[in-house]
């Protein structure tokens, strides 16, 4: 990843630690110690890492091969994240089993280029096995907006 991303990540961690220390002020005294010790230890190290990263960026402003490689990966990564988000969203809307069936079917047809009937079979088998496993192991499933309809 690029040097900018590294600096941004360290800055985000600095902000997180700062916020953790600020938030800890509202805790009871005995609950403050642990997070405060961690933050007191982490912030100087983060500043050290930030300075080191900035120095390394100045010495090599063009970045390296991995920067270009990372940029090329972004569209495919976003597309994959889209699939994951979509699956979560369908679970939230219609429940785990229907969402699982739809997700597997769509994914196999679109991404894996498997014929629709084979994808349908794979999706069906997955739903049946998941259901059976859930019944045997007494597993729970995420609640959906549709509630008990599915």
């Amino acid at each position, binding site marked *: *990843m690029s040097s900018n*991303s*590294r600096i941004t*990540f360290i800055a985000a*961690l600095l902000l*997180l*630690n700062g916020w*953790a220390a600020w*938030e*800890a002020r509202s*805790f*009871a005294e*005995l*609950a403050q*110690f*642990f*997070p405060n010790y*961690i*933050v007191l*230890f*982490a912030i100087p*190290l*983060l500043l*050290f*890492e930030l300075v*080191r990263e900035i120095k390394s960026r100045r010495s090599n402003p063009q970045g390296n091969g991995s920067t270009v490689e*990372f940029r090329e*990966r972004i569209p*495919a*990564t976003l597309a*994959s*994240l889209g*699939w*994951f988000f979509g*699956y*979560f969203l369908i*679970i*939230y809307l219609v429940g*785990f089993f229907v969402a*699982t069936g739809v*997700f*597997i079917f769509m*994914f*196999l047809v679109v*991404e*894996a*280029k*498997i014929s629709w009937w084979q994808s349908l079979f794979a999706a069906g088998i*997955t739903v049946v096995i*998941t259901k059976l*496993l*859930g019944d*045997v*192991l*007494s*597993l*729970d*499933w*995420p*609640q959906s907006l549709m509630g008990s309809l599915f």
Partner: protein
Amino acid sequence: MLETALQALLIMLDPLRLGFMLVGIGVGIVIGILPGLGGMVGMSILLPFIFGMDPYTGIAMLLGMAAVIHTSDTFPSVLMGVPGSSGAQATILDGYPLAQKGEASRALGAAFFCSMLGGIIGGFILFLAIPIFRPLVLAFKSPELFMLSILGLSMVGILAGNAPTRGILAGALGLLLGAVGGAPAVPEYRYTFDMLYLYNGIPLAVLALGLFAFPELLDLLVERRSISKSEEARGGFVQGFKDVIREKVLVLWSATLGALVGFIPGLGGSVVNWINYGAAMQFCKNTENFGKGDIRGVIAPESGNNAKEGGALIPTLMFGIPGSGTTAILLGGLTLMGVQVGPRMVTDQLTLLLSIIWTLVLANIIGATLCLVLTKPMARICMIPAQKLVPFLLVILIMGSYQSSRHWGDIIVFFTIGLLGWVMKHLDWPRAPLLIGFVLAKSTERYLWISMSRYGFSWLLFPGVIIIGIAVILLLWGGYQLKKRSVKQIMAVEGGHQG
């Protein structure tokens, strides 16, 4: 004693009891393979079935299940880079890179063989250690337990690779994430945003799955390849057997360490495998390939986590102190069967105690054999292209994550931590230290608070504290020296190539 041991073995070899043990082993294998499900789920499933059973049969089933979870949990750790249970987190570091090289069968073969040996060695070590370690464990108070947590945290430095600052910072982030939820000292809920889900803290299983599994799934899809980057499958499980035989001293050392650490209530399996991994890095020579697919990185944690099961039973059975959720349910089960745990187990109920050790030994042998049979077909998973594999893995991971608290928060945290893990992976920030920090956060804070409120600063002068403190310093110093030496070796090799 030997006569009683033989009598206990004959009791356990009764076909009915063996049958129930097999049922337990079957459940244990399935639970281990499914990421996110652990011993507590297995115990909860089997507990209703023990009503009316005699203690030997009930124990055969319950312990048969618990003993093999840490054998079969190697499948997801090696094949998918996902911890099958909390005790298989360290196995990923070298098991998954081996699978990527097309050596999944070798890694699995070695893991199952040393799991079996570890379980057997652990059982026998405990048989011998009961009279010696009982007074020692009873002498452990909060300051010593706090120092043991610090010993675990010192592994962060060792596992940080070539980026010690980043490793320590990742460990600190893990500690901070571990501070979410109820504070141990006072009724105060920290960093919960008034969300009920976060009152109990972030579940370990969800954090581990998000941190390690999510980034792998994403990268598999982006790169559109199979888990194995190599087209051909090299090194079958026989090669794994040979590796274990070659590293027999490491197996013995790791199993002994695993059993002894398991002895200490409250530390748990998730700590044992990291301690074993870190100790192996200290113990072995030429450690520069650790984390890149070194078979010793699989052997050490796998030998230790099965041996730990026997150790964890001792405080439960001898003192009635359950060291984990799994042993707490087991304790309930034993009470249901009319077994009174406590020091009398060694005197009045020696046959029962020995039957427990036999159950561990037999279950480890049977479980490892069954897993070996499954190795070949399971290893083929590594060759399946990502587009055909990832949707099914995602379903399993969502299913596993959701079982932690059975709340939508599990899925949201899985996704959030997953993105954090992905960023850390691509920025070369080590993820293992974060997990160690998280695992040890609660115990570190709790024992520090109890030590300070009971003893002030005088606990710093306790002999046990000083001894463990010296061990921590030696460990860090040894790690630093070894690292310096390996860097010199690498530079010398690179210099030689360039010359």
